[in-house]
């Protein structure tokens, strides 16, 4: 049961430095691209990449929310890009851990604290978006939706899905890190490489799933309200307003 090689926890500063590293990669990348944004061609390569990413995120969000995507793109897109960068950067060799005993690079998403913080962001984003888009009354009414006695179950559902978000991402990323560590002691060189390549795939999928689930929670919270206040009526009114 001695766990010197396989670590389940990072110290505070290891976690902070790893998170700052991911943030630095994202910020420097965004700065390098954003410095030379142009409206007219010729575009830089970076602008093409950034536009592909932003358009893909916007399309996915508008498919899920069924229409408007603009208010959700900053929040959900940031979650997706942060988790994706954190997961994909695990291809970096674990230099710090083998040289100085300071874990770098260790994916911050493979630590429960980080995923819990992200899940808490989603937990608070759902009511904030609902209140901002539909109003306080609609948000509070959503808790007594089918009937009043469903209130405790709705509250419980809110907490448990935040918990599930945190544990899902943490479990997937930690399992990847641990499997690589175990295989390194069993069959070095070949198998760990294959598992790390598989870990890149899992990491991308998990980033996508985290963002999609966050969006689904936000969309369901804002749409439940829509159905209750006679959807046909509101939609026809909206169509009338959009007509010139």
């Amino acid at each position, binding site marked *: *049961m001695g*766990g010197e090689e*396989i670590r*389940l*926890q990072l110290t505070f500063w290891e976690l902070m430095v790893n998170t700052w590293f991911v943030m630095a990669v994202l910020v420097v990348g965004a700065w390098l691209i954003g410095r030379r944004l142009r409206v007219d061609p010729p575009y830089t390569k970076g602008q093409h990449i950034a536009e592909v990413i932003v358009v893909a995120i916007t399309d*996915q969000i508008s*498919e*899920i929310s069924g229409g408007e995507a603009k208010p959700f793109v900053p929040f959900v897109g940031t979650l997706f890009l942060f988790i994706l960068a954190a997961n994909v950067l695990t291809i970096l060799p674990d230099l710090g851990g083998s040289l100085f005993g300071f874990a770098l690079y260790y994916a911050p998403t493979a630590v429960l604290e980080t995923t819990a913080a992200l899940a808490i962001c989603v937990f608070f984003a759902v009511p904030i978006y609902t209140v901002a888009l539909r109003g306080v009354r609609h948000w509070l009414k959503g808790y007594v939706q089918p009937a009043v006695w469903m209130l405790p179950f709705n509250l419980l559902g809110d907490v448990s899905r935040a918990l*599930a978000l945190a*544990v*899902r991402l*943490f*479990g*997937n990323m*930690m*399992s990847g890190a*641990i499997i690589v560590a175990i295989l390194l002691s069993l069959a070095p060189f070949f198998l760990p490489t294959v598992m790390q390549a598989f870990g890149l795939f899992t990491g991308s*999928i*998990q980033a*996508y*799933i985290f963002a*999609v*689930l966050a969006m*689904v929670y936000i969309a369901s919270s804002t749409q439940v309200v829509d159905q209750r206040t006679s959807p046909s009526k509101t939609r026809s009114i909206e169509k009338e307003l959009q007509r010139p």
Partner: protein
Amino acid sequence: MTDTLSIIATVSIIAAAGVIAIGGLGPSFGQARAISQALQSIAEQPDMSNVITRTLFVGLAMLETASIYAFVIAMILIFANPFWNTMLRLTQ
């Protein structure tokens, strides 16, 4: 005291193996059903493959949560066992 420690270690290891075995079984059956149904739907309606694939991924993530819980508990039992640590602290 060493006897108690070894009993705790044995029970923890057997429990961890059982947790991951049983906990992996159910979700994998469920995921197999979900994937086969989704493939059938895509074969019937290729136009809707975009929506079906997205829903499939989200559903698989939901199913996977159960086995991830089992995995986390198995990892806690092996690498961060609270009973083992308490027993070690008491004996020293």
